């Protein structure tokens, strides 16, 4: 993570048009990437839960979605802070921003649904279906920047990366660092979720 911060603040050259504000990109894009990974992980675990019925997958899906929402919230905030000096506004109804906001609402709704009281297995099944359907918005976010005249710059194309080499390295360091942090967070959160499940089972047994 220190290497990623060094890459963002020192190693990467200052962008000529936007200046120093462009350095937000080295945290904004990795956060967005890890958010997509988290929602993909939630979707995959939800599929596994529906296939096997094992509660561990349900806990994994919920954990990944929770971290995904945290990261997506930070993406929206950092994007807004970036947009203010660059576009002159905190928010614009750009297709990519709208689809991303929808993604945030879908998975926030998923967490609300999970927090609602009800039968555990039924709730887990509903949540799993919700997580799978919600993931359909991820390709919409990705392709909206390419095909719907979005304001956000397209960095990755099928031919190349639209960045100077030093910027690419700084970005890669950020991607690796934030991905590792995600792995650590999801591992911790899944352990906590499993422990919660066991404590709940014990408490129910005692009651």
């Amino acid at each position: 993570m220190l290497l990623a911060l060094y890459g963002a603040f020192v190693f990467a050259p200052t962008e000529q048009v936007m200046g120093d504000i462009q350095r937000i990109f080295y945290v904004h894009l990795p956060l967005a990437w890890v958010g997509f990974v988290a929602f993909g992980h939630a979707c995959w675990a939800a599929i596994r839960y529906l296939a096997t019925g094992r509660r561990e997958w349900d806990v994994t899906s919920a954990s990944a979605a929770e971290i995904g929402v945290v990261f997506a919230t930070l993406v929206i905030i950092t994007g807004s802070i970036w947009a203010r000096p660059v576009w002159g506004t905190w928010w614009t109804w750009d297709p990519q921003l709208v689809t991303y906001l929808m993604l945030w609402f879908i998975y926030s709704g998923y967490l609300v649904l999970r927090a609602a009281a009800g039968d555990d297995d039924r709730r887990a099944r509903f949540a799993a279906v919700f997580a799978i359907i919600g993931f359909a918005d991820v390709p919409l976010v990705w392709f909206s920047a390419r095909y719907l005249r979005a304001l956000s710059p397209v960095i990755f194309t099928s031919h190349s990366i639209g960045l100077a080499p030093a910027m690419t390295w700084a970005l890669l360091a950020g991607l690796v660092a934030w991905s590792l942090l995600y792995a650590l967070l999801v591992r911790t959160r899944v352990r906590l979720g499993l422990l919660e499940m066991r404590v709940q089972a014990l408490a129910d047994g005692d009651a």
Partner: protein
Amino acid sequence: MAYLLWAFIVVWLGIFGYLYRLMKRSQALERQVAELTRVQSGADSRTPTATARAHTASPSRAQGTGG
């Protein structure tokens, strides 16, 4: 530069805030486990088998409690 600084502050506040929340949940679970263990050990000591075991292990204490 102020925007850049705010962006990084917000990100790290968010991450540490989430970690703090996880830590609090973990502490609450530890308290619950301790409570459950206490309740369970209390229930065990009240069962006839446990009482009989206590009598066998310590006759003098058993007499004391019995008298």
